[in-house]
């Protein structure tokens, strides 16, 4: 095909795309409904449509041109990401060092962002046990996050218990909920399980919203106590029993922020350690076998229900820990923080990370949460970009950033298992 005809074809393609864009945007962007004095009025916005259509035209043309004229040596984005994944071996230690040293040189804003990212890393690692290892599609993980958060908030409020007492209780309660919810539904397969877990997530949120006498409903619970450092508090007055007083330094809000940062960092590492350890133990291997082939598991005498329940409960337990941390960090929680959006975000992090890959989850959380944060200036376009990014990243890398699997045990040298062989489970 000659360059001229290729160019003409590209132009034609871009023109058609623009035409589709005109159809899509003509009414939705071009005619904005405004609440007028008596009834709705339409505000025409032809220029906005023109810009949107032009952007689609130019974008499509640029994409086609780039595909056609890409110099031979230039890697495609797909391969670029693969190369990035291969570098993973060196990335993990670097990332760890970066995370440990962050508070030493970063300002308050960055540490806060770090706390947010680490919370999602922890949630991602917790959900990886359920989705990545056991292959059970859980669309309601936020329910356990909520259970953990409310457990701590209510225990602190009603019984005056501290964070470190409540943390294990919150995890335990979330695990119990995991068992209660899991028991009736775990024999469901595939997308039936997905919708039921989604429903459970919504049920918990609705109950939190409406059980006003217990949860204070939509107003939420405020004044949740902050964690202490071996009994020392982080009060601003620097009075006796405070960290500032004990160490003889000026009280500063950043001390508490840094402390919270290391708390979530430790919790995330705990999650990571437990799931890495479990992977090498019979329980974790049974999860992975379950993901690969449930029927074969049954034929080998593995109790499928119990195995699934343990995955569900342990995943829920870490969700509960993360929830308790969220409550203590915010000092305020309301049902608004526990919508399906959270479940979707965590699931997206897990899938984008590459199912079952610990490093992948950390990278995906960094990219998704950190990346979205960078767009904070474009407040209203932020989630729009988030949605588009999910689509684009899935298309570029359907198996996630770090795919492949490391065997849990080996006789000789351990080799990575290609992602193509690994099942994503049917549960």
């Amino acid at each position, binding site marked *: 095909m000659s360059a001229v005809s290729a160019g003409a074809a590209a132009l034609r393609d871009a023109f058609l795309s623009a035409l589709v864009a005109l159809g899509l945007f003509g009414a939705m962007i071009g005619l904005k409904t405004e609440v007028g004095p008596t009834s709705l009025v339409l505000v025409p916005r032809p220029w906005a449509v023109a810009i949107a259509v032009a952007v689609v035209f130019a974008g499509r043309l640029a994409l086609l041109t780039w595909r056609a004229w890409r110099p031979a040596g230039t890697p495609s984005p797909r391969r670029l990401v693969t190369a990035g994944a291969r570098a993973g071996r060196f990335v993990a230690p670097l990332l760890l060092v970066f995370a440990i040293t962050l508070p030493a040189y970063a300002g308050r804003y960055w540490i806060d962002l770090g706390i947010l990212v680490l919370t999602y890393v922890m949630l991602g690692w917790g959900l990886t046990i359920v989705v990545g290892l056991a292959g059970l599609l859980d669309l309601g993980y936020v329910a356990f996050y909520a259970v953990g958060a409310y457990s701590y908030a209510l225990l602190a409020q009603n019984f005056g218990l501290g964070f470190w007492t409540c943390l294990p209780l919150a995890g335990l309660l979330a695990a119990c909920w995991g068992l209660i919810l899991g028991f009736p539904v775990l024999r469901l397969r595939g997308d039936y399980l997905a919708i039921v877990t989604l429903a459970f997530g919504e049920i918990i949120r609705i109950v939190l919203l409406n059980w006003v006498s217990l949860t204070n409903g939509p107003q939420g619970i405020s004044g949740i106590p902050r964690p202490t450092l071996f009994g020392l508090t982080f009060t601003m007055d620097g009075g006796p029993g405070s960290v500032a007083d004990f160490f003889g330094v000026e009280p500063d809000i950043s001390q508490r922020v840094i402390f919270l940062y290391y708390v979530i960092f430790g919790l995330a590492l705990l999650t990571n350690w437990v799931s890495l350890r479990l992977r090498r133990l019979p329980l974790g291997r049974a999860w992975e076998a379950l993901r*690969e082939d449930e*029927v074969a598991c049954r034929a080998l005498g593995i109790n499928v229900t119990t195995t699934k329940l343990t995955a569900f409960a342990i995943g829920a337990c870490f969700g509960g820990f993360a929830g308790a941390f969220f409550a203590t960090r915010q000092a305020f929680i309301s049902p608004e923080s526990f919508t399906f959006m959270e479940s979707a975000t965590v699931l997206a992090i897990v899938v984008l990370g590459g199912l079952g890959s610990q490093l992948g989850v950390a990278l995906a959380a960094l990219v998704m949460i950190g990346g979205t944060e960078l767009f904070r200036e474009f407040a209203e376009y932020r989630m729009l970009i988030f949605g588009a990014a999910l689509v684009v990243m899935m298309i570029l890398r359907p198996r996630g950033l770090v795919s492949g699997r490391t065997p849990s045990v080996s006789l000789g040298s351990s080799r990575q298992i290609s992602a193509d062989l690994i099942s994503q489970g049917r549960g």
Partner: protein
Amino acid sequence: MTPPSLLEVHELSMRFGGLTAVDGLSFTARASEITAVIGPNGAGKTTVFNCITGFYRPTSGGIALSAPGDGTLALERMPGHLIARRARVARTFQNIRLFAGMTVLENLLVAQHNALMPSVVNGLLAVFGLAGHARAERAAIERACFWLDAVDLTARADDPAGALPYGAQRRLEIARAMCTCPVLLCLDEPAAGLNPRESDELSVLLRRIRDGAGGEPGCSILLIEHDMGVVMRISDHIVVLDHGRKISDGTPADVRADPAVIAAYLGEGDEDEVTESAA
């Protein structure tokens, strides 16, 4: 002297809606023997297997397993995983069902799950290095290595099971079933898709499993197979099914001479099987 009976299938029937797949079937499989179940396609062989291993609950009839030291177990009332765990009946599948994304060795360790993790509490304690897990794991790897050697897959222990060639996958599935320490091994067409040399090796392997070797006790085998060469060579006892009913039962020589069997294969079986059974 005939060996004691191990598995007694009594008046077993399985209906799916209006279709009767197995109809009042009774037969006995004796200990330390290879019992073959043969018959034309659609005779109900796999359905019988699924009933024995708990994947189907039979419509009526009984399946009794004389478990050593455990009396007689009624398999038709046990859930599938307990049949493998308590009654120690292991099976393979017609369409190979390996854990494709796990290594050969991992496949064999998953098979020893119950030995490695007697209870969930035990499994959780192992996270903290308690419950004597390390020792159990070493023993499990040893057992896995024994069977890897037996099926000639030691060199591929660290390869993903899904990457093995077809014949190796079949052998691995048998090794995996053997790692559960069964008293009865049910094989669903283990020779399907194997070349003649591989079929011969399979025959040797199955005899070895039956007789026991290298410290392993012998294990009875129940076998579904279309390859008459393999069946006639290694079976001690053959049960012939057609349309869900037993039409013949006896030694290979008896069955081969039975006019009812010849009629079933010539009358309704397909061409391949006729030539195979004649061979």
